[in-house]
């Protein structure tokens, strides 16, 4: 049986508007078709005539002015799909992520998973600045303790080696 690899269709939507409170939102989902992409962009723009809608699919990048195409009042729609690119609240400060490079790959994945669990809650509870501080603190502690643990293990090995002599 020949296995035909199905090409995964991917559509990315971007809405950008100076008047809109949402300056830029990216939505990406593998099952998004043109109409669905447009509906989401219109929903993000909320009928704002200054909002442009850009979408990217397999055939390239397309830009459409909502002013020209969208009705004055867009119907409210709820997006239930799972975005592949997370919202800003779900992304960590890049500098904090780079600090994790001091850890092993396995430990880095574990710590990143944990922080990503807590981070949205911290943002909602304490605000972005304090959430970033909390994020730095936890990652810093994990890095320092990891290094200390490594030193202790080296010390243990050296101690056993000396004891055996």
């Amino acid at each position: 049986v020949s296995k035909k690899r199905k090409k995964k269709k991917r559509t990315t939507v971007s809405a950008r508007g100076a008047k809109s409170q949402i300056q830029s939102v990216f939505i990406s989902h593998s099952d998004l078709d043109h109409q669905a992409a447009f509906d989401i962009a219109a929903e993000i723009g909320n009928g704002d005539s200054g909002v442009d809608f850009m979408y990217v699919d397999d055939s390239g990048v397309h830009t459409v002015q909502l002013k020209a195409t969208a009705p004055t009042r867009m119907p409210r729609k709820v997006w239930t799909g799972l975005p592949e690119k997370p919202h800003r609240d779900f992304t960590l400060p890049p500098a904090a992520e780079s600090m994790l490079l001091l850890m092993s790959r396995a430990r880095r994945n574990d710590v990143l998973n944990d922080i990503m669990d807590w981070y949205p809650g911290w943002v909602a509870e304490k605000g972005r600045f304090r959430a970033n501080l909390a994020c730095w603190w936890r990652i810093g502690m994990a890095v320092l303790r990891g290094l200390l643990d490594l030193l202790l293990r080296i010390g243990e090995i050296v101690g056993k080696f000396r004891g055996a002599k």
Partner: protein
Amino acid sequence: MARDEDVLTTVEWLLLAAIMRNDNSAYGSVIFDTATELARPIKVAYGSLYPTLERLERRGFLSSSFSEPTPERGGRSRRYFNVTASGKKAMKRSEMLARRIVGTDAAWGIA
């Protein structure tokens, strides 16, 4: 006769108890949150979470398995920890040792 490495430290005991509280299958953030809740008002240091879990795994008190990677986690998988049979024995042994050391409450002047 139990060796000293068979006896658990307080943090080790606490983390094993936190995993047991979550149906003996939990990942890092859940273990930490449960342990913090159990130890309150004493604070648990996040930095000591993974070194302690990995030490327990090396000693055979814990086993770990990885979940399927998910796109919203950037292709990363979660590491789930489970307390092994020897881990449960070690918990019991440490508890009995603590009881033996303390003796009765009256011996410490605790009502």
